[in-house]
């Protein structure tokens, strides 16, 4: 006679069976380990998950965790963690200038492109020794054709004191705005003095300063002003939102904006970090970012539909003329430039 089981024993047994049944699945989800990704929040984080993490990493057995914060906070964290043998993130998403800054501070690993199977497709200009370019766009002229009847063709046309209060600039984009103005005034990426002078003239003529990209878009929408500079990708998003705005690639060459990823020296999972970099360069992920975000792919094998390419892309000539910031110059002079911006231009 077998002893009869109590209800509690039966339930315990069922729970144990259910637990055992789920074990292989859990094990498979973490079979390759965890990748911790430092990134901005919002749309970019959502699209990283949608276009890279879910289809190319999680599906293949990686566990991916996003550490979302603004880039100043994440850079501070990287520097604060530098002395630790084991950091808390495996890859960090940063703009090109901030990738350089972290490299200059000695906190990131040199990239071994031999470990990336998609590296062969990467544009040479996106192969930084210390980081990998993920997406790029260019700083183009933007104008509302209703308010600006003569189409501008250059940064010089945008930063023209004659335009008075029809010109708007963005406070948080002080570095790029200073360089655009310098190019307009005949300066160089490492000689911003002519740009400072020109900006002061524009300010005197009534140029408006908006705190954020969103406030700038709101000003464009409400027709407070009609002329400025912005990333081409963002212009596409504004056009999609119904704002009357047209973009032009300046004759001086558009300033390039590159967003990429670096690997902290003390990344706990370097293999995972390389898997992430490789996945982000995957053709499908790059194409999806072009569609979803309006930024250009950094790999040559990504196919962008001709109508979309016309709106977000650049011609081969324009690509040749893209102007890169002088990261070293900006990094060394950042505090002084911001002080000038706050005290002289905004003050």
């Amino acid at each position, binding site marked *: 006679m077998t002893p009869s089981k109590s209800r509690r024993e039966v339930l315990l047994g069922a729970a144990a069976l259910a637990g055992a049944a789920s074990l292989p699945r859990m094990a498979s989800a973490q079979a390759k380990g965890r990748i911790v990704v430092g990134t901005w929040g919002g749309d970019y984080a959502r699209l990283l998950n949608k276009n890279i993490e879910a289809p190319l990493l999680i599906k293949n057995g990686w566990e991916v965790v996003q550490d979302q914060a603004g880039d100043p906070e994440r850079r501070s964290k990287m520097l604060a963690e530098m002395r630790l043998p084991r950091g808390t993130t495996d890859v960090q998403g940063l703009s090109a200038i901030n990738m350089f800054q972290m490299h200059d501070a000695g906190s990131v690993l040199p990239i071994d492109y031999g470990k990336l199977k998609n590296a062969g497709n990467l544009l040479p200009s996106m192969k930084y020794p210390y980081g990998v370019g993920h997406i790029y766009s260019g700083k183009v002229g933007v104008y509302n054709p209703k308010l600006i009847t003569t189409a501008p063709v250059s940064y010089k046309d945008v930063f023209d004191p004659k335009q008075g209060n029809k010109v708007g600039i963005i406070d948080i984009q002080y570095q790029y705005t200073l360089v655009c103005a310098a190019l307009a005034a005949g300066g160089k990426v490492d000689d911003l003095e002519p740009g400072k002078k020109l900006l002061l003239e524009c300010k005197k003529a009534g140029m408006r300063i908006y705190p954020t990209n969103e406030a700038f878009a709101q000003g464009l929408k409400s027709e407070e002003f009609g002329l400025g500079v912005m990333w081409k990708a963002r212009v596409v998003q504004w056009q999609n939102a119904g704002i009357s705005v047209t973009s032009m690639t300046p004759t001086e060459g558009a300033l390039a904006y590159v967003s990429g990823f670096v690997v902290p020296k003390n990344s706990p999972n370097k293999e995972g970090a390389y898997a992430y970099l490789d996945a982000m360069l995957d053709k499908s992920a790059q194409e999806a970012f072009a569609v979803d975000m309006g930024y250009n792919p950094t790999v040559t094998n990504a196919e962008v539909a001709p109508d979309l390419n016309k709106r977000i892309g650049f011609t081969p000539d324009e690509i040749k003329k893209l102007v890169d910031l002088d990261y070293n110059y900006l*990094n060394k002079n950042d505090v002084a430039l911001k002080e000038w911006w*706050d005290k002289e231009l905004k003050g």
Partner: protein
Amino acid sequence: MAATAQTQFQSDEAPTPLLSATTLVGPATVFVVAGLLLPLAILFRYSFDKVDARRIMIDTFSFDNYVKFFSDPYYTGVLATTLRVAALCTVICLAMGLPLAYVLARTQSRYKNVLIMLVVLPLFVGNAVRAAGWMTLFGSKGFLNVTLMQIGIIAQPLQIMYTEGAVIAGIIAVNLPYMVLTLQSVIEGINRNVEEAAFSLGAGPATMFRRVLLPLSLPGILAGTILTFILGMNAYATPVLLGGPKFKMMGPLVYGQFQLNNWPFGASVAFILMTATLTLTATANILIQRRFRR
């Protein structure tokens, strides 16, 4: 036997008072020391360091950051603006909050709790969201300007956004509930009979307020003004969103320095802000208490 019973009684009623006090204040003390005082001490040390583009800062001991702040009219101007805005907001909150708190404290209405909830309602929304609402109201094509233009009072939209006035309005909206709630709880504790005694002795409403209500509600006024002033001095979201890029207060200035990776100067600005707030609050507290003790 009586002595034994007394010993037993004493040990039951007052067990190891030292241990009890430690248990009560221990967790909060550990939290404050580890979460506030220790980081503040580290930050204070940073304020004497020197900024460096590569390593963020270089260990040194110099007063350069403090000298830079006080010798530059731009930074002292930011401090002056912050003091002015915080003081104005505090005075306006007190002027508007005192009558409202008095009515709330004295009302016999069965809707009293609803009225108190209405005062607290603005705190249910975050500062940034509330400021976004103000932006919709104050914008050049916002509700206020469109209404004024449609009824023909103005021909061109008024520039309300990105002005000190917009920041003051925004901060008052945030701080007023704190002032009202603090005052209301104190006024509620003042016996209504003392007011009636003043009236029966021939005092008018103004005299009763000045001689009876004001001195008795002084602890509430002090607590409310201190709270409002501190919140005003440290405001961040409202000045950034409603003041715009040209308007600077100390809170955004501190954060801006950390964004620039200029930790030493950011730390020194943070300590200047904290010292100014503490000094002014303590001084006002002492002066007002002395004035009313006479």
